[in-house]
């Protein structure tokens, strides 16, 4: 690793501009990564506030704080903002920062497009959020926006929602093309695909998923637009259309979408666990194959979200079997992480704590996913809080914990300063407790029969709803501590070494901390080949 020599004098000619225009005009992958990460954190807080409105209303039975119309707007906007505004941009931000540094590239392959793909987002979300102030209110038909509730029966703001989704799609497609092109063309000489860090691999596969399915999403919202404004009847049964067609097209996008939000998380965790176990990742090859298998399977299981729409039995059985198959490669990943920890020499800094919590809690979410795949049982689980518990287990202590793990793990490299370890651990434990108190009882509420997207509920669900709401506030407010820790780390702190963590491997640890504005202007010489 010490064999790599940095070309420091480049910095003197190409340092960052001063002031606001640095951020508006930047084509630097590190700046754009930073923009993405801050943007996603802002959206995380906005979407989180909406979640807290929901949980506050559900604290006890009755309608206390909001009316049902507004409650539906909150569930819808919470979902849209968290999926498209918080989780996805955070992973794009990580890709921007890390992919070039991990493969020894000077920048992303298409820097100008990189700038565009970020700067579309504030406009897209500005438009989406502005619908809250429009006559008739914001979209209120759920983040899955099933027709005809989202077409014939939608508020007028649905058109703005459609346009915002188009913008997000354009941004994602440009971002993913950039990732693919960078990874395939700009790897340091001698780095084979099977030498790439797993984070790069998972992002390569994720980017292909995005390029494949974002146009499908664009297609389905365009069909809605046509139904609403131009007299077509794609989804209108009265005009010869088919409301179920909407669900098929939506979930053909939607299922790969949920893996888009988890595959890069696999990459992050596969980087962190070996570092703090001081032991190489177990089964690198099988990790790559498992990721690719999961990505492939994600295209052929979409209708497991629709077991109750009345598909013929052959369809139900096919989608059940195909969905159950996903457990196999997912299991391989979990077993590999456990085997990486086994016989290691572990320490438990904040990134490791988040990564271990990820493995445990994501596995719980995966197991409840397996239960949901069983069609007859799904008839009882479908659209209840059991489903809410399931997907929040894979998304919050899954995707979001991995993003936090990544932030703590690479912050010293990005800022040159160590974060405050005590505060970091405090943040972890508050989040860990908060998440479980929020979402674990939702399994019970769902099994006992409470449907999702209900602004009010029967009395037998009261106790666990109250517990869940308390957990949500603990989790929500602990994120302010995260904000404080990050700002504190950016402002100063104990200086980080170049390697930062004593077990860390990879090209990003061979450059200075903080990472210079331009890195790898000349390709690095690779450390000894990473083969067993």
């Amino acid at each position, binding site marked *: 690793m010490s064999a790599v020599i940095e070309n420091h004098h480049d910095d003197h000619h190409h340092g960052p501009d001063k002031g606001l225009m640095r951020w508006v005009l930047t084509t630097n992958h590190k700046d754009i990564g930073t923009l993405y990460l801050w943007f996603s954190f802002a959206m995380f807080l906005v979407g989180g506030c909406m979640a807290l409105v929901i949980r506050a209303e559900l604290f006890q039975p009755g309608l206390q704080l909001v009316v049902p119309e507004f409650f539906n707007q909150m569930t819808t906007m919470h979902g849209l903002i968290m999926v498209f505004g918080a989780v996805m941009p955070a992973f794009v931000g990580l890709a921007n920062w890390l992919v070039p540094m991990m493969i020894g590239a000077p920048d992303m392959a298409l820097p100008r497009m990189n700038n565009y793909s970020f700067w579309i987002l504030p406009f897209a979300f500005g438009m989406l959020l502005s619908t809250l102030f429009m006559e008739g209110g914001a979209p209120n038909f759920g983040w899955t926006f099933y027709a005809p509730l989202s077409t014939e*029966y939608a508020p007028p703001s649905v058109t703005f929602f459609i346009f915002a989704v188009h913008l997000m799609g354009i941004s994602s497609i440009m971002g993913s093309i950039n990732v693919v092109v960078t990874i395939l063309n700009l790897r340091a000489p001698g780095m084979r695909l099977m030498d790439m860090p797993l984070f790069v691999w998972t992002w390569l596969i994720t980017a292909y998923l995005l390029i494949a399915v974002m146009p499908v999403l664009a297609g389905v919202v365009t069909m809605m637009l046509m139904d609403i404004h131009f007299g077509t009847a794609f989804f209108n049964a009265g005009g010869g259309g088919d409301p179920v067609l909407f669900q098929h097209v939506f979930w053909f996008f939607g299922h790969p979408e949920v893996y888009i939000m988890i595959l890069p998380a696999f990459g992050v965790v596969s980087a962190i666990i070996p570092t703090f176990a001081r032991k190489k990742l177990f089964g690198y090859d099988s990790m790559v194959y498992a990721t690719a298998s999961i990505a492939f399977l994600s295209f052929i299981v979409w209708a497991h979200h629709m077991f109750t729409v009345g598909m013929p*039995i052959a369809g139900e059985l096919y989608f059940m079997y195909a969905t159950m198959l996903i*457990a196999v490669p997912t299991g391989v990943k*979990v077993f590999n992480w456990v085997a990486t920890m086994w*016989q290691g020499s572990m320490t438990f800094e904040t990134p490791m704590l988040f990564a271990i919590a990820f493995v445990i809690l994501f596995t719980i979410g995966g197991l409840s996913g397996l239960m949901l795949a*069983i069609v007859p049982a799904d008839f009882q689980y*479908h659209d209840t809080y059991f489903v809410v518990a399931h997907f929040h287990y894979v998304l919050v202590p899954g995707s979001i914990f991995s993003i936090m793990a990544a932030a703590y793990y690479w912050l010293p490299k990005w800022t040159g300063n160590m974060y405050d370890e005590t505060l970091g651990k405090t943040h972890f434990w508050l989040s860990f407790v908060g998440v479980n108190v929020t979402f674990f009882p939702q399994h019970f509420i769902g099994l006992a029969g409470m449907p999702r997207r209900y602004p009010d509920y029967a009395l037998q669900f009261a106790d666990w709803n109250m517990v869940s709401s308390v957990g949500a506030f603990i989790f929500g407010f602990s994120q302010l501590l995260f904000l404080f820790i990050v700002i504190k780390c950016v402002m100063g702190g104990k200086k980080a070494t170049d390697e930062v963590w004593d077990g860390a491997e990879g090209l990003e640890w061979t450059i200075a901390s903080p990472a210079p504005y331009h890195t790898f202007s000349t390709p690095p010489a690779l450390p000894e080949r990473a083969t067993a």
Partner: protein
Amino acid sequence: MTGTEKRDQGRSGYLIGLKWLIAAIAVGSSWSVLADWSALNMTQGVTEISREVYDLHMLIFGICVLIGVIVFGIMIWSMLVHRKSLGHEPATFSHSTKLEYAWTIIPIFILIGMAVPATSTLRDMYDSSNADIDIEVRGYQWKWQYTYLNDDPAQEVKFMSSLLTPPDEFYNRAPKREHYLSDVDNPLVIPINKRVRFLITSNDVIHSWWVPDFAVKKDAIPGFVHESWAVVEEPGIYRGKCTELCGKDHGFMPIVVKAVEQDEYENWLAMKQQEAKDVYETVGKTWSMAELMETGETVYAQHCQTCHQANGQGIPPAFPSLVGQGMAIGDLDAHVDIVVNGKAGSAMQAFAAQLNPAEIAAVVTYERNAWGNDVGDLVQPREVNALIVAKE
């Protein structure tokens, strides 16, 4: 070693063995001390199918818990022992083809063990042939309509079933009743030990008809009719909910099914058939203004008030005000028409399917003469009926 344990399991593979294991875990763990099991777990229900589904649920749940215990157990062991602070030196292995094969192949057998009973239960659920009674279940924003299909249209019993809990209870102005948000004015009545087939559809957006005790959940989709069925074994009142987001009052359209003995069912059905006949007769008579206003107020509270509000002011723009403007003080024929036929592209439904002509005449008259509208005119049920018949 885990690999061996799991392989043994995969080999023995018999569900009975697994069920015993699960039972042992369930009894051995702390769950049994928890008093109110029903607040934590799926209902066993009152049909053969619902019990099959419950068993399947417990089987998969048990397998998942077992996998969780093994995987997390190894992780926790490793975290406790393989720590740097205890001076544990890292091993150097990073690959084992044998292990990789084992943990790819063993899960496939476990999955097959789950898929077999799931497939057989699903086949039973999908066999909806040989029904004794056919009931059409139709979703509306935000209530259910039940029609007891009959070859003779005069004998056809059809009624709406909507929430009974008054708004005062959800706005915390009155104490909440025992079956808060779970009671309806007209429950669906079915006989026990008969194969009842539900033909589920919708009039507007997608709803979903779920009765947990029957393990029946089917989406009600406009333009489609889907089947489901149940043979209920015990008399009782079974409560369910709408489970597909259908707009503002998605949480306020519960389902109540009353399962009764065969003779009680027959009496009830005869009574409902008589009621249907009575309605037919009331439509023929001439109503006074006072009668129309009185009935109109009741109908308005049941069917119009959720959108247009008790004071008629509505929630613009989605639900326009009826006071001092528009339809309610304008042309009488247009007013009747919008109530009968609804308004395309809005939430205003065609109420001809839900209300009888007398009710429509009464509510139109009420809207024209309430809240200070004072138009002074009225419409007779037979005129409304003529309009509906002409349309058909």
